[in-house]
């Protein structure tokens, strides 16, 4: 394995079937890697927004529903609404964990792609991260 960056048309990326030998194939691979980096930045912000929505929607209304149920003086709806809220929160948290796994795996795939030491792929990753950050981080401020 060469330990320095090379500008080359030939590379083997990640899987046995992904071997590139031509400029067209290299251009396509760079595009795929660029989109992967954009997706990675998007997932980072997506996870943050998911967490924000979970915290806002599933923690405050829980107490409000409890107060309402107690006023109506029925014990059954009280426990049912709490268990439903807990189940919804559990589902949200499970979904977030799946998104986290996808983020970890994509992060490592991008690292392995850069490890091929192909200069075009590296530039694709850097450009993809820049484009991804530019497109997606303003959405963090907006609700």
């Amino acid at each position: 394995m060469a330990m320095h960056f090379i500008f080359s048309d030939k590379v083997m990326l990640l899987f046995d079937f992904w071997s590139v030998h031509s400029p067209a194939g290299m251009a396509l691979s760079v595009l795929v890697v660029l989109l992967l980096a954009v997706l990675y930045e998007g997932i980072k912000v997506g996870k943050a927004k998911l967490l924000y929505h979970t915290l806002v929607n599933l923690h405050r209304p829980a107490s409000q529903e409890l107060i309402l149920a107690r006023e109506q003086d029925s014990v059954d709806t009280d426990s049912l609404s709490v268990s439903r809220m807990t189940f919804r929160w559990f589902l949200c948290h499970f979904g977030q964990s799946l998104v986290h796994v996808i983020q970890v795996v994509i992060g490592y795939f991008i690292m392995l792609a850069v490890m091929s030491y192909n200069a075009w792929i590296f530039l694709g990753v850097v450009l993809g991260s820049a484009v991804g950050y530019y497109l997606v981080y303003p959405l963090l401020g907006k609700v």
Partner: protein
Amino acid sequence: MEHSHHKGKSYMDNSNSTMPPSHHHPTTSASHSHGGGDGNMKMMPMTFYFGFKNVELLFSGLVINTAGEMAGAFVAVFLLAMFYEGLKIAREGLLRKSQVSIRYNSMPVPGPNGTILMETHKTVGQQMLSFPHLLQTVLHIIQVVISYFLMLIFMTYNGYLCIAVAAGAGTGYFLFSWKKAVVVDITEHCH
């Protein structure tokens, strides 16, 4: 010694023929090649594969040869990834608890209609020589080392070990992040 040479040679014959034999170590090396120091005749895989024969893991001498050893390595890597996620959350919690000094900076800012408004900035920080900051530094070193170990494990391109890293990260996040307060950590690069 002949036995180790024979094993090395047969592995080379079965190895992936797509790799160019650019760094082809001679199998008949010097008589004092004892298998511990320079016995590394493997070529590094550059694509994902599923296997458990002759998988070198992080340290020389830590070689997986059987399915049982691979299962053990799977569990160990899984627990390491879980511990890494837990360490991240624990550091966040410790940082929140230890932030005691709060400084308020007020400065006059021109407002609409020619009025002058006071804008106040609140900064929280730690003292440099305090115990919480030293503890955070030690935990940071441990976190960096573990994250690089996980990266190197993923770099073995072994399918079982990569799945162990991903599953451990997911399980660790699921078990430890239910109390998460910081919404996004933009300093995360690899993951």
